[in-house]
């Protein structure tokens, strides 16, 4: 692509663009909705927390050992585990994805950093979230659920 390098063209465009609003895309909410717009809660957040928790327990790590293994702040992992509104950094989510060997963009959606409009993806996340219980040792069913879910994330 060969872009215009003439500074006069650029200055002329800038002068014309100066008072303009620039965007393209659909109209959405009315102004009245501005005050009511609430933080969207990602329904797949429970799946993300469970994925993290089951992975840690399967490897028999404490939270501290897990954070060291992942090379992320312990505070971030605790935040993810305990605060459903906590937004992890993209770096942390990428590190978790690398450890579990799943595509990072899938975990961005699960963690709430990105949004999906994929019905099957959301349903699978909710099914996975419902299949695990908070006890120390992974049950056989939890182990199977974890394996299946990681496989699902990698295949799509």
């Amino acid at each position, binding site marked *: 692509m060969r872009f215009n390098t003439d500074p006069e063209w*650029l200055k002329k465009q800038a002068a014309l663009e100066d008072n303009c609003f620039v965007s*393209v895309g659909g109209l959405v909410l009315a102004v009245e909705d501005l005050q009511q717009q609430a933080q969207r809660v990602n329904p797949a957040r429970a799946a993300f927390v469970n994925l993290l928790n089951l992975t840690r327990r399967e490897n028999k790590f404490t939270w501290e050992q897990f954070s060291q293994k992942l090379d992320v702040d312990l505070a971030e992992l605790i935040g993810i585990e305990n605060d459903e509104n906590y937004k992890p950094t993209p770096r942390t989510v990428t590190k978790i994805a690398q450890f579990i060997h799943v595509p990072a963009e899938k975990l961005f959606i699960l963690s709430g950093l990105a949004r999906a409009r994929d019905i099957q993806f959301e349903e699978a996340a909710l099914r996975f979230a419902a299949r695990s219980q908070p006890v120390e040792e992974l049950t056989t069913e939890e182990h199977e659920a974890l394996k299946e879910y990681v496989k699902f994330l990698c295949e799509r």
Partner: protein
Amino acid sequence: MKTLVHIIDNRTGQPVEAELFDEVTIEHFIETQQEWRPIVLKAARQLAAHGSRELVPQHFHWDWTTKAPELSVLANSFYGIRRDNKLQGLMKLQTVGRFCRCRLPEQVDKALVYVDYVEVAPWNLKTLAVALGEKPLYNAVGSRLIEAAVLKSKEEECKGRIGLHSLPITELFYRKVCGMTPVGRDSAKQNLLWLEYTPEQADNFLTGAR
């Protein structure tokens, strides 16, 4: 693809280098949510609170992260402009799809590249920056993105033809600054105004001959 383009730094009025690239990733989308969206919302609330409802950006709640699945679709092309290690603008084009056909009588049904989404960082938009008591930082980011759309159209052998649906608040930019021809309101897209380039208009935009 990464290439250096110039935009205008409003602090000096002089051209400065920025990077225009097409390898847009979900991390860029997350950046818009974390860096742009809070400022857009804050400015929108200020404008609404001061009775300037007609100036409230009509895209204030967009979420680029919902487009993450579209990154791997070949019919889509994404472009970003970066300076100061920050995204200054983002664009999504479609080369195939229901809107990728001309409507102007002289070129009806011919292929065009559809400009699906364009957003310029809020600190570069005068209306939003002023609402927050600031001055806009960079200028001509929108023009560079439209320029990229026209060049992509030429790459796709569509001869520079592009089309888009304009938000009411942005009609001035596409009609006057870009010189696109308004064709009519589209009931298939929220009655937004459809605008289009002929190959001649596209070339005029690229060269500044208008």
